């Protein structure tokens, strides 16, 4: 799987959608992300960032989830063209 056209979740534009293709984290953080629905193949949508610029709000598997940019950086997305 080539990673060229993949984009970190943290760099999506508001309203942009995509599919999770790769996770670059390990251990507890990885586990937590998986529990909240961040798994390969899941569709995500970037809703907005918090007023101070971090964390961001993501729609994943029908849930609104807040995630810090430093964690979102390790979730790689294939952007769905709209």
């Amino acid at each position: 799987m080539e990673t060229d056209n993949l984009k970190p979740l943290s760099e999506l534009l508001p309203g942009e959608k995509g599919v999770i293709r790769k996770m670059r984290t390990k251990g507890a953080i990885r586990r937590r992300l998986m529990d909240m629905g961040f798994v390969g193949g899941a569709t995500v949508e970037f809703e907005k960032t918090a007023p101070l610029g971090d964390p961001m709000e993501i729609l994943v598997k029908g849930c609104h989830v807040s995630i810090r940019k430093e964690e979102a950086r390790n979730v790689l997305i294939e952007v769905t063209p709209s």
Partner: protein
Amino acid sequence: MMGKKHYTLCIAGNPNSGKTTLFNALTGAKQHVGNWPGVTVEKKEGTVEFEDFTFTLIDLPGIYSLTAYSLEEVVSRDFILRERPDLVINIVDATNLERNLYLTTQLLELGVPMILALNMMDEAEKKGFRIKVPQLEKLLGIPAVPMVASRGIGTQDLLNTVKKFLNGEIQISPRRPTYRREIENAVKDLEAALRTHLPGEFQKKYPPRWLALKLLEQDEEIIGKIKRNATDSDAILRRVDAEIEKITSILGDDPETLIADQRYGFASGAFKETVRMLLKDRINLTDQIDRVLTSRILGIPFFLLIIWGSFQLTFTLGNIPMNWISDGFNFLGTLFSHWITIPWLKSLVVDGIIGGVGSVLVFLPNILILFLIIALLEDTGYMARAAFISDRVMHFFGLHGKSFIPMVIGFGCNVPAVMATRVLENNKDRVITILVLTLMSCSARLPIYVLFAGAFFPKHAGNVVFSIYLLGIVLAIVMARIFRVVLFPGESAPFVMELPPYRLPTFKGLMIHMWDRGAMYVQKAGTVILAGSMLIWFLSSYPAHPRLSADYARLFHQETARHERVLAQIAREAHVPAGQLTTYPPFRQYDEAYEAFHRRSQELLKKQCALTSAASVLKHTLEGIQSHYPNTLPIYQAYRQEMTRYQEAMGRLRARLAAEKASKSYAGRLGKFVAPVLHPLGFDWRNTIALISGLVAKEIVVGTMGVIYKVGDAKNEGEKLMESLRKNMTPLTAYVFMVFSLIYLPCIATIGVIRRELNSWKWTLFSASYTTVLAWIVSFIIYQGGRLLRLG
């Protein structure tokens, strides 16, 4: 008649799926809250009477998964596996079925009998979901009951289904996902190995297939269990590593990810085959609200407004009943001090017991209101937004978004603030928040600052007090960052948090929530606070009869005798019997004249007028009295002078006695003993005693200062205290004293709740000692630095 049949049921589900609402709907008032043994995770237990059954119902903590990510998850899976409840009720949020079924999938894999409670059906319908329940039951292999827990709809169906299962009328055989062939093969091999190497007892609780999967997922807690229980565990674990490597090389991903993917596959499959969306993209209330409450522009103002409002309600509204309670206890104290005549018993009952119980109960109104507000914020869903908004700032401090609210509450009182840290799920975040929270200067410390800033920096009092608050905040930030690195090294917990939809909470839920926590505070924290207060009472009032430097009884007697001699002399000069001076007509008239003059001049002063008119009235009245009773004015003046002199002398003596008793009590001796340690900070033994007394509650420091500086019961006590403080301390030591008061050991009540909330003496002692050491270091730096700069 046969006795009732008794069974244990438990409710498991995602956070916010309605577990507690269902629990409350089923149990009503028959419930109690405690903790799971050894951990701070809350355990709710209740009983349900249904037909000829009695059920014990357990509300498990809200979890997303059965990994060992959090304490809650470990507690939940251990409960299900070890205690083997007769039935697990898995409650799921029907509006969010796909994600909720992920946990369901993992619960199915435990192989225990289970029923699905499809909650929030009202919202699901509104959103346009149509769920084919029979199809879902078939796919999962368990019965499913639709319900609206908040309105009690479907709860009877649920109990009926439970009954049918327990009576053997229906069978439950949970289905579970099957994994890719490579994984299934590895699981089979490991399962066989575990069967031969684990004791039978252990296998009865933990099914080997499940253990094998957990080993492939590298679940640390299970690895630990295997090490402790399996014979030849090293070989098993080596085999696990080999299998993981093999699977990773063949399938290109580690088993942990593959297993999670397939669990989601199972859940999504069940979801897609059973749920239809009728209407799509209808206006969503939650999104509408969030467009305001978490928006870029209005998000922060609203957040600050809500925090400010919560703070105001907790302390402004809470202080009204708080005053009633403390007045009530004062009244009780007076009552008992009249009834009891034995001095030591009186002191024990009035100061020790009534005072101690009072000090526990005065916080109750604040705590009840605070928990009502927190329940409201949590149940409506705003708490998650508050964390979302403040996380940026708190993360910078090494804390979590949810730490913000407890920290703010800390400025009011540390006791409810410590209890408010319950909103933090992660134990590390909780410990750090509690540790630094005591640096938020609570309102009980304010009187100390007011006294010292007023006495030493009258022109800059505001700025000086502000600098102390600021110092507390800066120290909290610094300490939080240090603790994060030193106490909990390694990766910090990720901030991945659900933003649940906004919901209207139920009144019953809010009340139960508030009451439970309030009762827990009184029961558990109360005992520690009470014991602590009584200890401090004992230390400061015993020994009751220390060896005194003077015979006070004789001194009192001498002064009174002198006074009586002078009065007798005056009586002779006035030609009245000695006892009748107070009722002697001219004296009474003089008294009235002077009183009238006094009143009048006060009024004039208020209007900023000259006193000449009042003075001439006085002169006139005095002349009038003298014309009736000639030569009485000088005698009257001598009489007045003597009365004042006597009162002042007695006051001085009493203050001296109190001061000497205080310094010779155990607390005083402790103060003198500890004083050398505080000497490098510029404190003498008097400061030390005051600081020790502040352990009960920091507002006591000021009162103790009054006692040891022998201010006595003069009217302008505050002024006099400031004066003697100025004589004994420099502005530098005064400032250092404020700094020390800010930082050192939180009060007994706070220590009590910390012990209760962290369930650990280790952390409690750590909190008490680190603050004191920090107070010493910071004070030392300021004092010695100040001296170098010649500020002292």
